[in-house]
């Protein structure tokens, strides 16, 4: 089975847009976080698609890096969310606006 690259890239674009919209409109920090993961994985999908079509290894390497960075990000992000929840009793991102100018 040979899916054309353009289809995969289109799927990636759709996923990325969904993730971006999720980050922008959802106030729940966990959901926003998951949306970010969605955007990252959309980018991974695009990398893989082009790597396969161009028969190059560097796309794969990038994906590994992104997965590693996303894992680290999850660790830091979840710790932050836990701390915010402890102080504000809520995970609504709009509640965390102390740095307002």
């Amino acid at each position: 089975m040979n899916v054309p690259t353009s289809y995969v890239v289109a799927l990636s674009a759709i996923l990325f847009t969904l993730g971006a919209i999720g980050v922008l409109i959802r106030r729940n920090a966990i959901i926003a976080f998951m949306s970010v993961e969605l955007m990252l994985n959309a980018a991974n999908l695009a990398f893989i698609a082009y790597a396969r079509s161009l028969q190059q290894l560097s796309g794969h390497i990038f994906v590994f890096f992104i997965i590693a960075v996303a894992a680290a990000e999850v660790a830091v992000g979840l710790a932050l969310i836990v701390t915010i929840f402890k102080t504000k009793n809520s995970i609504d991102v709009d509640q965390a606006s102390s740095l307002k100018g």
Partner: protein
Amino acid sequence: MHFSEAAVEGWFALVPLIIAFPVAGLLVNLALGRRLGERFTGFAASAAVALAFGVAVLQALALQQHPEGARIVVADWIAMGALSVPWAIKVDTLSATMMLMVTGVSTLIHLYAAGYMHDDVRFQGDPGRYTRFFIFFNLFVAAMMILITGDSFLTLFVGWEGVGLCSYLLIGFWYEKGKDGIGNAVAGKKAFVANRIGDFGFLIAMFLTFGAFGSLTFDTVFEHAEAAGPQAGLVITLITLFLLLGAAGKSAQLPLFVWLPDAMAGPTPVSALIHAATMVTAGVYMITRTHVLFHLAPISSSVVAIVGAATAFFAATIAVGQYDIKKVLAYSTISQLGFMVAAVGMGAYVAGMFHLVTHAFFKALLFLGSGSVILGIEHGHHRATHGHGDAHGGHFDPQDMRNMGGMASRMKVTFAVYLMGALALAGIPPLAGFFSKDEILLAAQGGNLLVYALLTAAAFLTAFYMGRQVLLVFFGRARSQAAAQAVENPPLIVVPLVALAGLSMLGGALNLPGVHTLGTWLGHTLGEEHAPEFSLLVAGISTALALAAIVLAWSLYGRRPLVENQPDPLEARLGGLFVALHRKWWVDEFYDWLIVRRYVRLANVLAHQVDTIFWHNWFHDSVLAAGFRRGTRWLAEAFDMPVIDGASAALARLVQRAGGGLRRVQSGYVRNYAVYILAGVVLMLSFFLVRSLS
């Protein structure tokens, strides 16, 4: 003595040392004198001058073989347009004579001062000034050497001013003492101002010289003056008359002599060295040095002779009426300087220089002797009042001859040498003064009879006042407790006196009639001078008059010696005339009325009208201060507030407003930031897209 040619030539090159040694002495004392004490200070200062004397002796020996002398250029001093004055030293028989006399007498007086000042600083109550005294003394010798050795008017003038400064400093040495606590300072100021009038004359003479002959170097000026011929007669006459004014200031001649008697406020060694033996003869030396010009200006020469003779007579009359032992000697000095000036005015330069040298010997001796007497009396006063609670106070004047009397038995050596000096000054043969004075009288007798008459009368008065002084001081009975308990001084003070007494006795041998050693010696510089033959008539008259004067003095003061509180017998004989003599012919009062009081009034008017009202009240307050205030107010209101302040305030407002605007962007909502990021990414991507398409 005979030395190899090359060695002798080299000795001329050593002459700068004659200035360098005293300067070194004063620097050493300046740096170390206070730390190393009186003995060191006195020794260093005396040694410096003694070394200078050694240099002078070398110069004299070198001149024996090279009488034409030498010119040693020390440094290139002034070179400006047509004016070129190197600092050159002139060694010739004239300057060498002065070098020998000044350094020789200075050495003796330095030694004497080392002893005298030891006591003086203690009587005056400030031993710390001992070092300062010798620094000034060495500075004086250095300045005097510059004066003597200078080979141009300007280098001579540097020394001329230098000795004037030292004179001022040393007259006011005890500046907080004297009448009303400022008497000595006032005396110093008076000397300085009177000298300044003379210096004004000297300066004008220099300007005229440079204007007329384009040079200030003696030899060049003389050559040009001689070559200029008769049409330069007027300018040369003017130059020489202004030079005479300079000489009158420095050598205390009429009408500028008034400072010298007051200068006796200085310590006695100062009176001896500066105000009797050396500095005051600078005027005579200067006229002798410029004899070529005076030779070309016969009018000036006769004015010089008459000024000198008038001064000699005038000052001698005043000396008769003084009670202060040093004042008598001061007026005597003025009188003897008058003799010298009269001599050089008549063209008898050798006689003038001869009298200058012998006078230095016996007048230094007399001043130092009077210092010895004063010190003895002060010691006696100290002993007499010791234990009475009245240590140094009271109104006792140790210089008043009425407080003395009978000192001969208590100060034997001082008496002997003083008598020698007095007889030499009176012109008793065969002492030094006889020969030198006789030569001047001889020249006058062959020249100007008015001058001769004045000088002979002055010589008579000289013998009289010296007889009066010796009889008042040394004979009779003590007229005060202090005099009764006076003691002789230690050897350091007495030995220089004995040396000077020897010179006063034998100084006449320098230029004996018929031999003319000094005349031949100076002839190398001054040109051959026909010395008038020794005249038994002139010598006989002057000697007879001198003896008569001494007999007259004895009949007044010797037969029945003065007792305590008795008025001067001369006062009864002369009446009002004596008062006039005692009050110095009211010259000081006259000058005070003629010049000082008018000057003070003018100064007051200027101070009030011009300075206070015009400059201070009007110009300063109304113009400067008010104008400044107005100007600054305008600047503050029209420029500082709107422009400078406005600019900075506007800048601040701009930043504030920009910050206020940007503040709203910072909402604190994470989602807003995410929108900005997204918008930025979209913008960037669309930019690249548009660029790749076009």
